[in-house]
């Protein structure tokens, strides 16, 4: 019998064969292990993303949701509340408003890359990508330097899940609580001395004349830090892994860094770090002969839709010339990722600087350790050696 268990280490490591069977044989599949339906075809996911009235985010969007987030953050509210909240934040994340960050981001990347000069082999995550990610996010969100290492560690723990109990374990909840306490500290700091940054603005923002609820301010900022740190860090690893594995693509982007933008889009399609999110049905829906009931949760498997040959020809081939428009690596529609512009910019600049110092590399291990997570996917260790 076919099983799709998003908590199993085998799915963490390689979900793609299971995704193919889902798309071809079980396009509307009930997974008892996940306790939800799974949609895996590109067109079905796009349809669900547009119909937020039916596929609601208000009961949470993480596959394994954290306590109290439902209804209080961007990813866990529906329009019109969602749109008003997003309207408060969106401006800071628009491409044109991020341009002043390009040089500081480049300086961070160049400094970290310089430390790799002369080294034959290095720990890409520990030596480069995770340090780069937190420092970039701290710059974007205006967080005071000093707690970067702990923030990174807690953000990564928060998004994990326990493969045995199929829930969040005590260590994950503790990390979430730490992050809330951290966010509360920053909010208090900005309220005492507002400095015109995003967190100052959110801390005193109003919607229709009403102050945001304290829970909304706190969990929105907690989630911004988590989403930013974990998603960007995870994707930077997937991108380096793809370039390490595909010599032709690597040589092309090193010779012409302008091609990095296309390679980033292809990696977002080929193996986005944000594999699966969930919605909750507000009415019964019949699809591919199955009836899903109001109140049921539905997994939107973006990573599977991105390998759907009904949309992308030869989907299992990594091809940086593909220009895969309409990919679901950042989700789509009302809840599409807030951080698309900063993520694209940071990944591009980070790799440009890394490639100046380490232009040719390969991975050391064939079998990588993968993060246990029902939502996200990336290796926890990636050693690279100069080729």
């Amino acid at each position, binding site marked *: 019998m076919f099983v799709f268990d998003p908590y199993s280490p085998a799915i963490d490591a390689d979900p793609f064969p299971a995704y193919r069977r889902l798309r071809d044989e079980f396009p509307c599949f009930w997974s008892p292990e996940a306790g939800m339906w799974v949609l895996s075809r590109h067109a079905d996911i796009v349809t669900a*993303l*547009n*119909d937020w009235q039916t596929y609601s985010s208000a009961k949470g969007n993480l596959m394994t949701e954290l306590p109290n987030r439902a209804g209080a953050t961007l990813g866990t509210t529906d329009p019109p509340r969602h749109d008003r909240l*997003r309207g408060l934040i969106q401006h800071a994340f*628009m*491409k044109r408003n991020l341009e002043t960050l390009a040089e500081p981001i480049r300086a961070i990347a160049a400094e970290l890359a310089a430390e790799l000069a002369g080294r034959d082999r290095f720990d890409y995550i520990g030596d480069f990508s995770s340090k780069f990610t937190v420092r970039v996010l701290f710059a974007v969100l205006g967080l005071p330097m000093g707690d970067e290492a702990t923030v990174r560690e807690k953000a990564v723990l928060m998004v994990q899940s326990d493969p045995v109990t199929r829930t969040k374990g005590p260590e994950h909840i503790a990390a979430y609580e730490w992050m809330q306490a951290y966010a509360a500290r920053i909010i208090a700091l900005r309220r005492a001395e507002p400095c015109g940054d995003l967190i100052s603005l959110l801390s005193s923002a109003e919607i229709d004349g009403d102050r945001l609820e304290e829970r909304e301010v706190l969990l929105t900022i907690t989630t911004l830090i988590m989403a930013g740190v974990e998603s960007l860090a995870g994707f930077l690893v997937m991108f380096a892994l793809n370039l390490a594995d595909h010599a032709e693509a690597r040589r092309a982007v090193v010779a012409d860094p302008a091609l990095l933008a296309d390679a980033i889009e292809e990696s977002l399609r080929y193996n986005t770090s944000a594999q699966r999110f969930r919605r909750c049905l507000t009415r019964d829906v019949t699809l591919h002969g199955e009836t899903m009931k109001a109140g049921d949760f539905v997994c939107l498997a973006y990573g599977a839709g991105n390998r759907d040959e009904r949309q992308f020809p030869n989907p299992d081939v990594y091809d940086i010339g593909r220009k895969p*428009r309409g990919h679901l690596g950042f989700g*789509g*529609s009302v809840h599409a990722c807030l951080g698309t*512009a900063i993520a694209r910019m940071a990944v591009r600049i980070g790799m440009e600087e890394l490639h100046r110092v380490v232009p040719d590399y390969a991975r050391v291990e064939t079998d990588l350790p993968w993060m246990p997570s029902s939502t996200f996917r990336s290796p926890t260790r990636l050693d690279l050696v100069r080729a």
Partner: protein
Amino acid sequence: MVKLTFIEPSGAEVAIEAQEGWSAMQVATSKGVEGIDAECGGSCACATCHCYVEGDVAARLPAPLDGELAMLDNVAAERRPNSRLSCQIKVTPEIEGLILRVAEVQS
């Protein structure tokens, strides 16, 4: 299915049978229409899915909401009275025959 026509920046016309419930942007990008970048994925946050709506049907489109009107301030090509962000146009039977002229530049 609803018939829509996109006019690419090169002048090429692309007729599409569009899926109801999708946005015009999603229809265009999934069918490979040229000239729509849609960098934000349809969350009305980038203004790179700019089109000019034409034809008799254009008058029957539901008016843009505040978020779209505000984001239209950021379009790279000239903003005209018939400027729309195609991610905010929902495909319904009422818009059968709509023509969307893709703006010549998006960023």
